[in-house]
């Protein structure tokens, strides 16, 4: 018999890819149901305006139109959109604008017709009388007296404010050689997954049941939230996340269109589909980041950072989506990074503006924190003429200090930061790079070397820290009558590759081939309640739940085998498709024989029920804290401001690695998105009109393959001590570690001009202007 190989730790190609790259996957927009109608959304062209009248008559008379609705028609029938995190002022968030519109792209009416073309034609016949109001776009201006109010009823644009005592920082400042102050901007970004949002629904009148398809990261949570909005019992709604073409956090939410297609399918008793176009997706899907931070650092001449204080001003947009006011809190929690900084304090102001709401975007809060503290480290190095890598080393939390409680109250589970730094420095040949940099400068070439050492939060849980107290995850293992294994995960992977990694785990546990394992997710009627895929939690939590169920099923199978083999169950192991004696693998019975006994229950076994299905719910004790060091080498053409990558080295430590290929994929994608933020991407709203000027892919610059460096990747392994798999998570690390790394590299390249800081995105013009200004001064 062929030997079954081990899968965990191997570079197994993604099993999801063949169907994705041969066009055999089904996305929401691929659904074609009999009698299906198309919904098109009429959106506000104004950032801020009073809604005087919405006239639907002409649209209703257009050919093929089945229904046209505005807020009036759905009054009292669809609940408001939920915000799952506390805030002082939580505005009413209707699915269709009522009284006022507050951002460009806000839904005002919907048109349902027998084809999407006719729905679009009719949408142009909806007549809306707007009375434009002054818009408030800039966050800091929004806080100034006399600024237009996004929500008059609050009397302020300040949504929420958190302040911690500043005494520890002030004390640290007294001991410091210098207090450095600077302002930095974490610009607003548009997540832009490959597949825009989409939703479809079908009402089964006979069963009184709604099926809702959505391009979502959280099918079960979405069901709970939509059931609340549509006044349906949870057992009367089935949510299916079919193939989901990326999310990056923006599909970790509930949106007006999901509620509207659900409502309309039931009301019209016909299937209804809405597939967002790129432009509306960019305008009306949650954005990310949007922070301005005023930083103070108390530092000693030797590079020791004694304290940090941040005044964070965080853009909420016009409304609060599911986690909008929660994300900034992750920034303040992580503001000390991987450093032993005794004093940390902050003021955090969350602000309403006439823009789309922000919410989780790959990294959610941690990129902002990491960007701040990693810019701080470079500021300290440059202030005192120290090497930036050594300043970091000096401030690292020492490896014997774990679990380590930060000044902000987090407990980092494990860490060993120096080996990752050393490995990256060695890979990059850091000293030689510095020598090359010095030589290049003499020739008038501007090479910059950027270092960032990060720590972040993965495996987001436990339940106490998540909205609705749902921070756990579920997993079911079913050994089928044919001895194949089905894994049902409550997570909802949408690009991360858990159909592969979970199958690797299950295959090894049973000693079977990976092809004999099927991983199912994303359907609330099939899969037990779960939480979803976000916060780099799927492997750490979903994987742990899966392994709990593996153990339960195996315990049962051992019991059955024990009676068949007449040996105690604790002496049995799973080996090469058999259940064998641990001490002698040749004494074995095929797994299939045990499975047959469990299903063909002819001879009842004492204390063993028939069947082989087990479900588990894993509640973590803490988050996990992966870390790493990134090094970027860039060359800046100071005549044009163009930045070119020469090298990119990343050493990431995400604990135990199940599939190195998946880890590398996540790191590469994450770095690409970081490079996007550092150099290219920015949601630009016109300061006066509030129009989204970067609202298409012709104007919003995503980094493409031709601008990305060759990634030189490596890792260290520091397992999480509390996670059953020892894993930590890697979904967001690239996006967290790389952004400051790239900015540090560009600023380092410009050091000869006396430039100490530039705000992202580092567009050529910004660099050119800074250099020009520096040259004029000199």
């Amino acid at each position, binding site marked *: 018999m062929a030997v079954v190989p081990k899968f965990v730790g191997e570079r197994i190609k993604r099993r999801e890819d063949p169907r994705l790259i041969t066009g055999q996957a089904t996305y929401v927009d691929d659904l074609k149901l009999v009698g299906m109608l198309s919904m098109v959304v009429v959106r506000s062209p104004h950032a801020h305006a009073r809604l005087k009248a919405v006239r639907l008559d002409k649209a209703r008379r257009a050919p093929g139109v089945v229904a046209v609705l505005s807020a009036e028609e759905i009054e009292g029938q669809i609940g408001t959109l939920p915000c799952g995190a506390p805030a002082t002022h939580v505005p009413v968030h209707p699915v269709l604008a009522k009284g006022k519109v507050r951002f460009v792209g806000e839904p005002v009416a919907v048109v349902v017709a027998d084809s999407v073309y006719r729905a679009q*034609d009719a949408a142009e016949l909806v007549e809306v009388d707007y009375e434009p109001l002054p818009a408030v776009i800039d966050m800091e201006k929004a806080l100034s007296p006399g600024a237009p109010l996004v929500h008059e009823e609050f009397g302020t644009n300040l949504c929420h404010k958190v302040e911690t005592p500043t005494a520890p920082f002030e004390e640290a400042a007294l001991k410091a050689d210098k207090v450095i102050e600077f302002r930095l901007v974490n610009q607003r970004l548009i997540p832009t997954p490959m597949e825009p949002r989409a939703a479809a629904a079908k009402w089964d009148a006979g069963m009184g049941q709604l099926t809702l398809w959505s391009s979502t990261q959280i099918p079960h949570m979405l069901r709970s939230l939509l059931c609340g909005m549509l006044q349906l019992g949870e057992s009367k709604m089935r949510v299916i996340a079919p193939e989901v073409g990326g999310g990056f956090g923006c599909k970790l939410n509930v949106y007006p269109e999901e509620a509207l297609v659900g409502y309309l399918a039931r009301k019209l008793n016909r299937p209804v589909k809405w597939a967002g176009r790129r*432009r509306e997706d960019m305008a009306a899907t949650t954005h990310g980041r949007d922070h301005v931070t005023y930083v103070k650092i108390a530092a000693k001449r030797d590079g020791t950072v004694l304290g940090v204080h941040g005044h964070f001003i965080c853009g909420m947009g016009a409304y609060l989506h599911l986690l909008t006011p929660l994300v900034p809190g992750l920034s303040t929690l992580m503001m000390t990074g991987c450093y032993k900084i005794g004093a940390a304090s902050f003021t955090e102001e969350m602000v309403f503006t006439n823009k789309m709401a922000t919410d989780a975007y790959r990294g959610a809060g941690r990129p902002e924190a990491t960007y701040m503290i990693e810019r701080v480290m470079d500021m300290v190095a440059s202030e005192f003429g120290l090497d930036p890598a050594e300043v970091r080393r000096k401030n690292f939390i020492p490896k014997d200090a774990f679990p380590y409680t930060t000044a902000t109250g987090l407990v980092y589970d494990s860490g060993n930061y120096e080996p990752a730094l050393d490995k990256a420095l060695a890979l990059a040949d850091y000293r030689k790079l510095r020598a090359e940099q010095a030589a290049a400068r003499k020739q008038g070439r501007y090479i910059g070397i950027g270092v960032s050492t990060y720590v972040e939060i993965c495996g987001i849980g436990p339940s106490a820290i998540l909205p609705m107290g749902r921070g756990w995850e579920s997993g079911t293992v079913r050994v089928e009558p044919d001895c194949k294994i089905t894994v049902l995960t409550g997570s909802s992977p949408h690009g991360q590759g858990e159909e592969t990694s979970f199958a690797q785990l299950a295959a090894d546990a049973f000693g079977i081939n990976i092809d004999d394992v099927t991983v199912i997710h994303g359907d609330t009627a099939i899969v037990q309640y779960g939480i979803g895929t976000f916060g780099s939690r799927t492997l750490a939590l979903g994987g742990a739940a899966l392994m709990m169920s593996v153990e339960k099923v195996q315990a049962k199978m051992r019991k059955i085998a024990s009676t068949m083999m007449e040996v105690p169950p604790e002496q049995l192991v799973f080996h090469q498709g058999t259940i064998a004696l641990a001490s002698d693998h040749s004494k074995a019975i095929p797994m299939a024989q045990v499975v047959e006994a469990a299903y063909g229950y002819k001879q009842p076994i004492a204390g063993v029920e028939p069947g082989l299905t087990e479900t588990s719910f894993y509640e973590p004790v803490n988050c996990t804290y992966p870390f790493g060091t990134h090094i970027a080498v860039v060359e800046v053409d100071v005549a044009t401001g163009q930045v070119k990558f020469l090298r990119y080295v990343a050493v990431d430590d995400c604990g135990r690695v199940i599939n190195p290929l998946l880890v590398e994929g996540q790191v590469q994608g994450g770095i690409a998105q970081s490079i996007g933020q550092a150099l*290219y991407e920015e949601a630009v709203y016109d300061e006066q009109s509030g129009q989204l000027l*970067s609202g298409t892919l*012709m*104007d919003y610059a995503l980094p493409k393959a031709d*601008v990305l460096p060759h990634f030189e990747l490596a890792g260290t392994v520091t397992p999480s001590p509390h996670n059953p798999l020892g894993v930590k998570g890697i979904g967001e690390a690239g996006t967290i570690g790389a952004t400051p790394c790239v900015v540090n590299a560009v600023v380092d390249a410009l050091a000869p001009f006396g430039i100490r800081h530039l705000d992202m995105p580092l567009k050529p*013009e910004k660099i050119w202007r800074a250099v020009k200004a520096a040259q004029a001064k000199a």
Partner: protein
Amino acid sequence: MYPGAFEYHRADSVAQALSLLGRFGEQAKLLAGGQSLLPMMKLRLAEPRHLIDIGGIAGLDAINEQGGRIRIGALARHDAVASSDLLRRRLPLLAECAAEIGDLQVRNMGTLGGSLVHADPGADYPAAVLALEGEIVVEGPGGRRTLKAEQFFLDLMTTALKPAEMLVEVNFAPLSARTGGAYVKHRQPASGFALVGVAAVVGLNQGGAVERCRVGVTGLAAAPFRALAVEQALTGKTPDARSLADAASHAADGKDALSDIHASADFRAELARVHTQRALEKAVERAR
């Protein structure tokens, strides 16, 4: 992404296309590669009632040398121009320019004629066609007429093409000996269009001085233009770092530079100067 209703017509010949164009007038648009028109229709920025597909007209994509001129049919795809042996040998600047357009998908579909008549201010081709002193052949109800490239581009997305006419060919004199050309651009990172693109042609005499200098600039202003001040400044000079820099400093002279979220007018003007210098340097190097 859902265009308004339109009627589709397929033209098998230039005559048929012109006849359809005559019949439907301003309600009609010609469809070639569709790389600009279709996105505009999907966004409903353009809503032609009649779409006349000229993509299947036989022979209109030919690239050949005839009567001492290199002739390129209106339907020649960007990728065909970029990879044409004839052009790479005889008119390498044009091939180099075509290779810089958009991405592979765009280059596989987009056409030379389509790009020129659309006249996007950031289009790459016009710079090269201007620097190479191309002649643009258009056909209308009254027959054919030939326009110099300089006469063709009038303003933002506006050309000298009349509503009932279509562009059928662009032709060029091959570059003579001791002449080099180069196209240098600063890409708008989202769209790939030229924030500024500069095409330069430099011919040297036996003594090594500049005998001929032609510079086409795109992206900077509402319409692409010949940078005459640059050309004049360099002609007769021996090309060296100083003379090239001096000449390039005139690249934006007298032009109202565009300004948008990607680059201000100042920066565009600076890019025009820097890239003019770089294009001239390359062209000189190739001429030698």
